[in-house]
Structures are given as structure tokens and as C-alpha cells.
């Protein structure tokens, strides 16, 4: 019985640069079951986008996978040739990107671009048009027939993102990787798109990996969360558990950095800046900024350990990390 879903096992992506080797992704392990929605959360430089690109084989050279494996429905994707990969992309694993304007071809009509994505089975043009209209309606584009002949620049950001979704869904992928799909959109449009995503996911029993930096989006949209920092997964947990009791100081720090509309409590920003990705060594990459770090945190390879049911943390002191939404430092007695 092949293992279903998507499994990433110890993935490492390195990029040689003039200043040294950048280890953008360092031993990332996670899995997404069929029909599950998961978020990859992190800030710039955390490696979340690189991980997704590595999964679908879209890394820009000279970035390359130097260790680990990606298995989709039991098949190892690492050794695949480009033609084989092309067959997996789209129907197996699909990806949507942040900026829909640059993802759509500006000189082709919407109908043409969505129709291109339909499975290659030859059907009469009328049938294909009907399918395109159905897809556009499915992603919530009002007046789908009138939009067929429109070009991307004539649509708004939200509509373009919906068209991207339609193109991607035309192949009914088993897994959808969405890299910051709503970051560039207004908040009311973002709410609509996220709602569509959830609905489509449920309807098509599709797995969703949502890459985002917005913890609020995470809270509202997914069942499981992987928090990334400096190329590693530092915490992995079900959503409710993560927010109720984060077990890594970075996660706690992030949660305390997000202002809320309903609370006027002081923020507790994480001091300092993310580390230089060149020359990341052993020890915890977050230690320089961590309020509870000590000497042992700087040495050796720190593994991801289970701290509760389905809840993993890469912190040696996971048991002392504080409770929900504290205004102040992340540390608290357990």
C-alpha cells in the first residue's frame, strides 16, 4: 500500500553564492495527508517558499536539493526527469503564486489560459468553453461568460487570483501548494479567496499547503501548522494547539508580535534580526534572539521532538514556553 499524500523527508536545499553556500532549507520533514489543509508559516528567509519550489521541482539554478526526499503518493520525486515531472505537476501537485499578474500571460485571454489547462482530451470547442465557464463560476467569478474574452490587465487583483485558481483546479490536483496567494490582495478580497479555497478543498478532497506569514490567516484556514525559521521546521502542531500553547519561543514571539483589533495590549516584538543564511551551523538558529536561550542551545544538532500528541518542537526547553497570547516575554513557568 503506497503511502498517500505528500511526504517531505529531510529536505535540504543549498544555493552556492559568491559569499558562501546558503542553506535555504535544512532538513525539513513534514507530511500532508489527502484532504488535509496545512500551513507553512515563516518570515523572509525562513525557507518556506524554497521548500514549495523544491517539492514541484521549480528551483532556480544554482539552487538545488542536496539531501532528503520528496515522495508523492509513494513515488520519490527527486530522481524524476523533467518530462516525468511535467506529468506530476498540474494533476498531482499544483502551485499558485503570490503575484497573479506575473503568473498570467498578459497577451492571452482568460478563456485561452484556462482552456489550456484543461486535460488534453480532445473535446469540441463548445464543450471546452462550457468547462471553462463552469470553472470560472466555481472559483466565484461573477459574469463568467462576459469575462471569457478579457485579458489579465482588465481584471482586478482578486479576479486574477481567482483565474489562477481556476487554471490550477482545471486539472483537479491532489495537492495544491499556495505560496502567499492572498498577500497582495485587500483584506475583504482575501477573505473571499480564502473562503473559496476552503470550499474547493472540501469539495475536491484536495490537500492544501498554504505558505503565509500571516498568523491570522493560518488560524482561520488550516488544520495543521508548520512554523519555519532559518530553513528549519521549528514547530509542527494542530492549529488550535499551536495557538493555545506554542512550544517554541519563536512561535510565541510571532504570536505576540501580531497586533489585534480587539486587544490594545502592548506588543512584545522579537528583538534583533533573522540570521545570515550563509554560515548557519549547529545549534539553534533562533538562540541569539531568544529570551530563554542558554549555553546548551548553541551546540549540537537539535532535533524536532514530540512534546504532545501530534505536537512537535525543536526547542530544548519546550516545556517552559508560555501560554496563549501573553503580553510580555514568551517564557513562563510550566
Amino acid at each position: 500500500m503506497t503511502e498517500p499524500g505528500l511526504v517531505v523527508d529531510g529536505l535540504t536545499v543549498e544555493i552556492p553564492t559568491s559569499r558562501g553556500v546558503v542553506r535555504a532549507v535544512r532538513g525539513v520533514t513534514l507530511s500532508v495527508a489527502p484532504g488535509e489543509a496545512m500551513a507553512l508559516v515563516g518570515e523572509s528567509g525562513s525557507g518556506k517558499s524554497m521548500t514549495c519550489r523544491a517539492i514541484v521541482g521549480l528551483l532556480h539554478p544554482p539552487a538545488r536539493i542536496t539531501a532528503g526526499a520528496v515522495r508523492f503518493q509513494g513515488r520519490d520525486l527527486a530522481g524524476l526527469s523533467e518530462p516525468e515531472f511535467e506529468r506530476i505537476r498540474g494533476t498531482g501537485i499544483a502551485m499558485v503564486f503570490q503575484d497573479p499578474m506575473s503568473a498570467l500571460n498578459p497577451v492571452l485571454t482568460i478563456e485561452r489560459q484556462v482552456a489550456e489547462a484543461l486535460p488534453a482530451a480532445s473535446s469540441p470547442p463548445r464543450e471546452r468553453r462550457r468547462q471553462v465557464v463552469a470553472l470560472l463560476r466555481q472559483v466565484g467569478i461573477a459574469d463568467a461568460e462576459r469575462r471569457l474574452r478579457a485579458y489579465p490587465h482588465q481584471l482586478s487583483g482578486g479576479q486574477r487570483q481567482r483565474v489562477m485558481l481556476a487554471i490550477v483546479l482545471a486539472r483537479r490536483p491532489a495537492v495544491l501548494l499556495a505560496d502567499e496567494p492572498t498577500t497582495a490582495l485587500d483584506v475583504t478580497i482575501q477573505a473571499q479567496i480564502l473562503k473559496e479555497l476552503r470550499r474547493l478543498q472540501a469539495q475536491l478532497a484536495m490537500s492544501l499547503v498554504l505558505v503565509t506569514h500571516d498568523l491570522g490567516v493560518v488560524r482561520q484556514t488550516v488544520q495543521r501548522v508548520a512554523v519555519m525559521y532559518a530553513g528549519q521546521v521549528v514547530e509542527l502542531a494542530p492549529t488550535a494547539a499551536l495557538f493555545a500553547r506554542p512550544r517554541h519561543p519563536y512561535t510565541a514571539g510571532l504570536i505576540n508580535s501580531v497586533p489585534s483589533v480587539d486587544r490594545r495590549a502592548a506588543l512584545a516584538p522579537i528583538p534583533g534580526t533573522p540570521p545570515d543564511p550563509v554560515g548557519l551551523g549547529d545549534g539553534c538558529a533562533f538562540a541569539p534572539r531568544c529570551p530563554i536561550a542558554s549555553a546548551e542551545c548553541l551546540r549540537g544538532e537539535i532535533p524536532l521532538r514530540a512534546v504532545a500528541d501530534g505536537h512537535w518542537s525543536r526547542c530544548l526547553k519546550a516545556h517552559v514556553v508560555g501560554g496563549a497570547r501573553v503580553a510580555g516575554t514568551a517564557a513562563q513557568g510550566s
Partner: protein
Amino acid sequence: MTTLAGELAPPRAARTRVPTGLAAGATMLLALLGASALAPVLTSYDPYAQNLNAMLLPPSAAHWFGTDNYGRDVFTRVLYGAAIDLRIAVLAVVFPFVFGAVAGAVAGYLGGWVDAAVMRAVDVITAVPFMVLVIAIVAFLGPGELNILVAIGVVDWIVFARLVRGEVLRDKHLEYVTALRALGFSRARIVLRHLLPNALPPAAVFLASDIVLVILTTSALGFLGLGVRPPAPEWGLMISEGRAFIYTGWWAAAMPGFACMYAGIAFILVGDGLADLLRVRGQ
């Protein structure tokens, strides 16, 4: 937003290394200038002295580059000619560069009728091929070094204007320009002290190629009898006079030709190196 450059923490300040191309080109130029300045030391011949007993002698220990059809030592004439050609080349580009850059920057920033006026002038000058226009102006003014400078000055500025205008058109929408306007900086200050320096790198790189173009133009004018007058040892003139003797004395025309090539390569190396050098720490 999330480019790798943005993800990296600030790099430590690196020492500005002089790029190898720039060093090589500069060395070549300095060698040429040095040789030219030291000409009286390096060679005892007089560049103008004719010796009809020694016409078209091939290169030898006595005459490193041979002699031309008047018996003059070619090596000596190439060295003395370097001074002429380099002087004209460098002087000729100063005005186009300065005037063109400023005109382009002002036109790009102000837009409107100023931009239209400058661009129409550029269009008019572009309509006529470069060489043709230069030749026409020199023919009108008469031959001589100064007139070459004037002719090139009138025609050559347009490339710099276009290059700089393009950069300024793009950069004027950057937020720092808005911020400086809000700080009450005058338009002159914003254009000349901020936008123009940022717009210069492509123009500076082109400057080097432009010098090569001017050398060739000067040589062409000399060749046509419109530039520097004989018996001056200007390289173009030498090529022109030596052309008739290509089969019997190829060195008379080829040596000055090699000299043009040498200078051209040197300037291009300098130009490319300048582009690297002009990049400021962190860019």
C-alpha cells in the same frame, strides 16, 4: 518582496576591490600615455623629418615599426600621434557627456514641454547619420582640431541624453524622490545631486565606447582630409597616406591601425570596469 537579497542580513562592508578589467585597461592607457610623453627619450627620430633614402623600410632594429613613404620613422610618429588622438578623444567627449547627461536628467524629471523640446532636438540630430553630420559640420567649419571638437560636441550628446533620461524617468517615481520633495529640497538639488548620480553608471560605461568612436571618427576625418592636416602624425592621416602602399609597405598603415585597436581595447576595458566600480556598497 522576498528576494534572496532581501532575506540576507546586512553584509559586512567589503573593501572596494578594483576590478581586473579596469586595472588592465588603465594600465594599457597609462603605458600608452607614458610612452607618448617619453617619446623624445624612447626615440631619437623627428616625426616630421623626411629621409628619402629610407623610404618604406620594413621593421628592423633601426626602425621598430619601419618607415613610411617619406622615410619617416613610423614608431616615432605613432608615439607622437598618440598625444594628438588621445587628446582629441578625451576632449571631444567631455562636452557631450556633461551636457547630454544634464539635458537628459532635466528633461526626464520635468517632462512636459522641456522634455518635448529636448527630445525633438534629439530626434532631429538622430535623423542624420552620425558620420554624415559630423563631416558636414567639419566641412562647413573647415578642418582643424577645434572644429572636430565642435562638430562632435554638437552631435554626440544625444546618446548620453537618452541614456540618462531613461534612468531618470524610471527613478523619479522611487519613494526617495517623494521623500526629498516632502523635505522641501529644490528640484535642482533632487535632479542634480540625487537622480543624476544614480543615472550615470550606464552613461559612464558608454563613455568609454564613445571615446573609441571618437578616435575612429577623428581617424576617419583625417583619412578624408577633413581633420587634422598633414604632416601631423595623427593616426587616421597615417592610415590614409599609407593606404596606397599596402602591398609594398603594409606597416605604414597597419601600425597606426594597431595603435587604434590598442587604444580602443584599453578604453573598453576601462568602461566595463567603471560599471563595476561605480556600484556602491550594497547594490
